[in-house]
């Protein structure tokens, strides 16, 4: 639910990194903070507990100005993955424009992935998001580990879903992280363009939208 503030000339987008506990959501955000180079790049805000588990959320703000003078502000959030923080997940997910679902590739995590995905679908409904229309990218993280589902197995299970292709990533190695965000931005753009007429009014086409935020 992007918001256009006419007075300050800011369009603020919200993307949420969702997924089971310890799947690498914060690591994704940290890697992005290193990798992207947009015109404006805020600090990583980390609200964590003592043992590096996310308590409320992580926040990485970035942005750039269009030739028309509109400031595109992107806020990337993570949710806490632990089951007991469901209220926090809902609060963070509310008003999201898109979701990156970070799944854990380890084969023993299949069930927690599923649980978390179902939780995402349920919570989306609870905060007024139509899950079937919500831009979503699925990332299978931790490809650098050994005991993981093969790409073939993942393909087998996901290729018939609306979210195919999924992204294979290793966030600790900064691999697949940018691709995930880029794919998500590409899925979010049509909806934003439709609502705020980015291409026509602000001369902001898909490619400049993506490159403006990723800093390429």
């Amino acid at each position, binding site marked *: 639910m992007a918001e256009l503030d006419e007075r300050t000339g800011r369009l603020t987008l919200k993307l949420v990194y969702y997924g089971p506990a310890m799947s690498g959501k914060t690591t994704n955000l940290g890697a992005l903070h290193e990798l992207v180079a947009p015109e404006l790049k805020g*600090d990583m805000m980390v609200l964590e507990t003592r043992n590096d588990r996310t308590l409320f959320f992580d926040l990485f*703000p970035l942005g750039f100005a269009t030739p028309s003078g509109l400031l595109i*502000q992107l806020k990337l959030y993570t949710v806490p993955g632990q089951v007991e923080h469901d209220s926090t997940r809902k609060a963070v997910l509310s008003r999201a424009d898109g979701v990156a679902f970070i*799944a854990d590739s380890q084969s023993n995590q299949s069930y927690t992935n*599923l649980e978390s*995905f179902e939780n995402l*679908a*349920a919570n989306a409904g609870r905060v*007024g998001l139509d899950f079937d229309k919500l831009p979503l990218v699925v990332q299978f993280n931790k490809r650098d580990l050994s005991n993981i589902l093969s790409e073939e197995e993942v393909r087998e*299970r996901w290729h018939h879903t609306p979210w195919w292709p999924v992204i294979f990533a290793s966030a600790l190695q900064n691999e697949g992280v940018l691709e995930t965000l880029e794919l998500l931005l590409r899925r979010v753009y049509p909806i934003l363009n439709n609502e705020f007429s980015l291409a026509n009014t602000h001369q902001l086409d898909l490619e400049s939208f993506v490159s403006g935020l990723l800093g390429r």
Partner: protein
Amino acid sequence: MTDPDYKTASDKEGLGEPLPDIDPEFSLSDLLSTKDVERLEDRMSILLGTNTEIVDAEALQSDQDRSYPVRYQICPVAYLVTEAPPASAKAATDILESVLYQASRYRLAAVAHHAIVLQDFDELQTKHERLLESEAKYRDLAIQLEQRVKDQVDQIELRQRQVYEAEKLSALAQLGAGVAHEINNPLGFIQSNMNTGKTYIQDIMDALASLRQGETMAKVVESFDLDFVLDDLQTLMTETIDGVVRVSRIVKDLKGFVSAGTSTRQPIMMNEVLDSICNLSHPLLHEDIRITRDFGKVSPLMADKAALCQALYAIFLNAIQAIEKEGSILIKCYEDSQTIFIRIEDSGSGMDNATLAKIYEPFYTTKPVGTGTGLGLTVCRDIVRAHQGEIRVTSSPGEGTQVRISLPVTN
């Protein structure tokens, strides 16, 4: 992930409402108090060696130069206005930004915490309301249940009354069977006597005919055995009259039981009632049961005769049935202080305390089905109480049972 097939909760619940923003656009004053800002300005002025101001982004005059943006996240929320050299001013804004960053951490956590607490509270309230609803539902159910239990109890009571009536009929039927037997006996010998009498009369008529044809009296008397015939005829008549008296007595006793139909009170003589009961019970008695009647003089009692007869008959039958082989039953009746006391005591098997405790329960019986006296002690007690009387039963195993009834004599 095992299977991406999912069922969203929204399919069932419909879409919910968005929650409050957990990352609102903070202004300078949201993050720092005026006092904090003033203190920072003081310290910055000292460090930079020149007067330095922190101006809220909203309040910045366009003509102010030498100003440096202080960003929170990516947007300026304030400007540092200073004459200090740009490098120093830039360092100062960096410090200010990190002050804002730290302050915002607390603010963000507080906003998130508040949003989450509100959400949890709302959920609790919703749950609470649902609990209240379900409590109300169950309370309604409980009330309905009470009504249904009452209806069922009414049903059961109705059935019980119907069974009472049926049992009462069965008691009367039992009585009727006994009475029929008692009447059949005399009727049998009356009929047989009459038949014999009729042949005797024929003999006498034949004897008369012989006399008229000129036979001698002595011869006729001898050949027709007239001495025996007349003597036996006399005996037959006496027996027959006895039989008729017995039948009429039974009918009279029986009238006590059935004259009712209406339950009007009439003066009754208790001794007569007890006699009737003994008489009517006669066919049920075997030889080894001794009945002792001990009747004192008692006043007439205004009573529903049929009901009282039935009650006393039932108690008397109980006494008979309590005696297996031989034994005795004492029936005593006397009056004291305007009250008639009746005692029916048997030497039968008696009851233990557990049985005794249940004797007034409707349909409680120790007898095989169909052999009960029917009325039962419940009804006996009801009848006695309807006459302002009392009934008391004492018993112990092997010691027989004593039933004491008291009935006040009212005028």
